[in-house]
């Protein structure tokens, strides 16, 4: 069933202050960045609230990908997947992010959708979130009360739930300087088709002297870092031992896109593929 759109309202703030005021003063306000998730809800009468905040007018403030002097990278709330994917510094330093943006929908979606929206939406199948987890991303959350920095790995608290308060907006993703060489990184999305698909399982991983990162989508109520498996690998566990631990860190389910059993098999195959790739590049 379609949403009764006559009941919906949209506000378009002209400044950051106005946007934050609206966040504080209008209960149940749903922000829209690219709209590639929120506008899908129109078809399903799944709108959570009645009032929407289109942030499009803040593009002059928030649409940027910025390499900072201290070696960090800032991705503004309204930077699109295309902005990220084709940015020279991202291409040079953060290949997993390039790859995950490339396989998000297809170009028509990448020209609209945003990685920050991907995070705020909180889907466990988000394509870019595992890459950002590998890179130890932090999020800038802003409200009229001030600004705070939250680790992405601590951001999600449950299925589509997060630590944001109702008056906050995510203004930027901050990536620290890269820790991994391109050959030490691996991204794999398994879906029904190459483009325009939502993942059955999605993985981003990396390993160097600086540590191991294993980040997964579609295997739990949120995108996750497999911290125990990471620790085991760091302590020299082999692939079979790592899989024993990983199995207990994931909680795949049957749904419209796949089955728990298939997801387990694919997760195991991806883990082995990743570890083989590392072994062959040493």
């Amino acid at each position: 069933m379609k949403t009764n759109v006559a009941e919906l309202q949209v506000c378009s703030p002209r400044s950051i202050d106005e946007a934050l005021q609206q966040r504080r003063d209008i209960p149940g306000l749903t922000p829209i960045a690219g709209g590639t998730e929120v506008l899908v809800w129109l078809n399903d009468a799944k709108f959570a609230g009645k009032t929407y905040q289109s942030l499009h007018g803040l593009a002059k403030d928030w649409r940027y990908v910025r390499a900072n002097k201290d070696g960090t990278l800032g991705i503004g709330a309204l930077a699109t997947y295309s902005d990220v994917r084709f940015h020279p510094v991202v291409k040079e330093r953060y290949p997993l992010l390039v790859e995950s943006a490339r396989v998000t929908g297809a170009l028509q979606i990448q020209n609209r959708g945003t990685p920050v929206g991907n995070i705020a939406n909180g889907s466990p199948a988000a394509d870019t979130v595992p890459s950002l987890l590998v890179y130890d991303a932090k999020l800038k959350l802003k409200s009229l009360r001030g600004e705070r920095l939250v680790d992405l790995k601590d951001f999600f608290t449950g299925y589509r739930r997060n630590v944001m308060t109702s008056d906050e907006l995510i203004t930027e993703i901050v990536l620290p300087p890269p820790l991994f060489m391109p050959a030490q990184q691996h991204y794999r999305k398994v879906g029904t088709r190459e483009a325009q698909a939502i993942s059955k399982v999605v993985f981003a991983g990396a390993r160097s002297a600086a540590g191991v990162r294993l980040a997964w989508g579609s295997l739990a109520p949120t995108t996750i870092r497999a911290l125990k498996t990471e620790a085991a690998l760091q302590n020299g566990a082999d692939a079979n031992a790592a899989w024993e631990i990983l199995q207990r860190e994931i909680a795949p389910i049957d749904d419209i896109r796949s089955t728990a059993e298939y997801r387990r098999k694919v997760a195991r195959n991806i883990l082995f593929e990743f570890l083989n790739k590392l072994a062959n590049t040493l």
Partner: protein
Amino acid sequence: MHDDEQSDVQQAAFRTSRRGFLKGVGIASAATVVLPGLSLGQEEAAGTPGLKEFGSGPLEISLKVNGDERKLSIEPRTTLLDALRTKLALTGTKEICDRGSCGGCTVLVDGRAMVSCMTLAIDMQGREITTAEGIGKDPGFAPLVDSFCEHDAAQCGFCIPGILVRSAALLKEIPNPTPLEIREGLAGNICRCGTYSRIFDAVEACAKKGGVA
């Protein structure tokens, strides 16, 4: 009372109460002011300054579509797709999935392909919108249209306007694409008749004959 009239009255009452509420929290007045056609030089970072509206009531806006400034009256929640089709009668932009999955509603915004079903019309003020109709009447793209015809690229043809629009942008981005680049470039457009190979051939042949202008 006729059903439609009743619902109109209910809607009007609803609007009034919402506006009253919004006014009460001190962030919007009932009067909506929209600045006419903004000329934004830098398409990328521009956004739509000077725009602010609430409510489900109609709003007068202006969109630049295929080179013409068009005035229309829409509710703020209207997608670009609905505005083009129902308000401007530009039905070359197809509504197929209406959820960003098929590419049938692809239009160009400042030369870049986007799904118009996932785009609010109010956000597109001041931007250059090109639809399939615009591609069709632009002599620079005639070789592409001809190539689609020569290769018999359409079966039922319903997806073709969206594919034509995306192909036009693709050949501007990459004048001589490899077969793989064509496939990846058109990955966001779905054809359920499955004439992909002819579509890809049409784009490739057009590029080899000198492309688009």
